[in-house]
């Protein structure tokens, strides 16, 4: 599997710095699980954080800080060991971590809701109200109505693929769109597409069906 469309570098840097909202962090982390090159870039960006931490002027800790930590270090840990997955189930995961934990399972356990012809969605719980994350399942040859963006949109392919009219996107690829981009993603024939879409602001639909769908379902 070769990734052709990556997360922008300035976004990787902000992920390493800890600045991204929850939904955007989620789409970055899932891309990292599928893209060794971006993983390497984020490791490098974390080195920037480590170097800057070392350069900070130290601030005195409270008097009993070390004693507190040592006392707690004595206490055994409970219930933090992850259960290892068996190899037989492993090969078939569609969702890498941290997506599986967020949903509580893999593709089969998603409770889809139909939002239009050939399009289903599942809105993910997020820790803050900043951006919204949703899974989209689009039947082969179908698409999301043409739309523009008032903010940023990241669309990560998890299964199948889609085309935006110019470029093809397959598993692991991310399409990044900002307010300058108007597009109408179409899922590939046959299998269709499952993707994770994160939007920082509501989409702008140009046709009446999209506008109605937006009013009713809050896409």
């Amino acid at each position, binding site marked *: 599997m070769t990734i052709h469309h990556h997360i922008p570098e300035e976004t990787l840097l902000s992920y390493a710095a800890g600045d991204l909202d929850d939904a955007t962090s989620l789409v970055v982390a899932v891309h990292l*699980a599928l893209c060794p090159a971006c993983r390497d870039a984020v*490791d490098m960006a974390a080195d920037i954080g480590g170097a800057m931490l070392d350069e900070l002027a130290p601030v005195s800790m409270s008097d009993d800080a070390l004693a507190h930590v040592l006392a707690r270090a004595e206490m055994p840990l409970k219930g933090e060991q992850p259960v290892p997955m068996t190899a037989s189930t492993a090969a078939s995961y569609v969702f890498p971590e941290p997506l599986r934990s967020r949903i509580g399972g893999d593709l089969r356990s998603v409770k889809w809701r139909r939002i239009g012809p050939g399009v289903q969605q599942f809105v993910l719980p997020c820790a803050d109200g900043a951006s919204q994350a949703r899974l989209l399942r689009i039947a082969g040859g179908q698409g999301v109505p043409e739309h523009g963006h008032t903010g940023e949109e990241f669309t990560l392919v998890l299964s199948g693929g889609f085309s935006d009219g110019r470029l093809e996107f397959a598993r692991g690829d991310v399409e990044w769109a900002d307010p300058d981009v108007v597009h109408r993603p179409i899922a590939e024939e046959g299998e269709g597409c499952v993707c994770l879409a994160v939007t920082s602001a509501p989409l702008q639909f140009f046709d009446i069906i999209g506008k109605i769908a937006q009013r009713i379902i809050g896409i």
Partner: protein
Amino acid sequence: MTGIPKTADTAEDATVLMHRIAGHQDRQAFEVLFAHFAPRVKAYMLKLGTADALADELAQETLLTVWRKAEQFDRAKASPSTWIFTIARNLRIDAFRKISRPELDPNDPALVPDPEEAQDDRMNRLQRASRVREAIKTLNDEQAEAVRLSFFEDLSHSAIAERLDLPLGTVKSRLRLAFARIRDAIGEDLK
């Protein structure tokens, strides 16, 4: 073996301390590491606007995590400063959110592994961290400021743009240039 380093001022010494903690639950090594990192992690928390008591608590929590997860510290993956930075960053985020920060799981069977040649060629991470450290000093003022605001002010790209009264695109391109510059510096004669 020649005893325990007296300070954690260099990455090499900090690494020796980490291995003593991981391999022998060495309290003395931990105390040296604590003396170096806890006050810096606290400074980091304060810079990001955390109140003093909570900053102290989060610094303690960070070092406690270092103790507990020491055996996960892998010299091949990060320098001690980098590793401790990521722990501090995540604990701070988690302190303010109901759901923990999305992070990949290195043991996830669905994770696409690094290509084999990358594993063989991979430069020693201490070496890389020290190159990054040098490269940061070569950033121009504008790039350095954008990076500092990202790491120490917890600002999104658009918030940085607002703070500096610049177009969003300018902020993004400064961060991109800073990133490229650092990457070029570590790429030299090592790839």
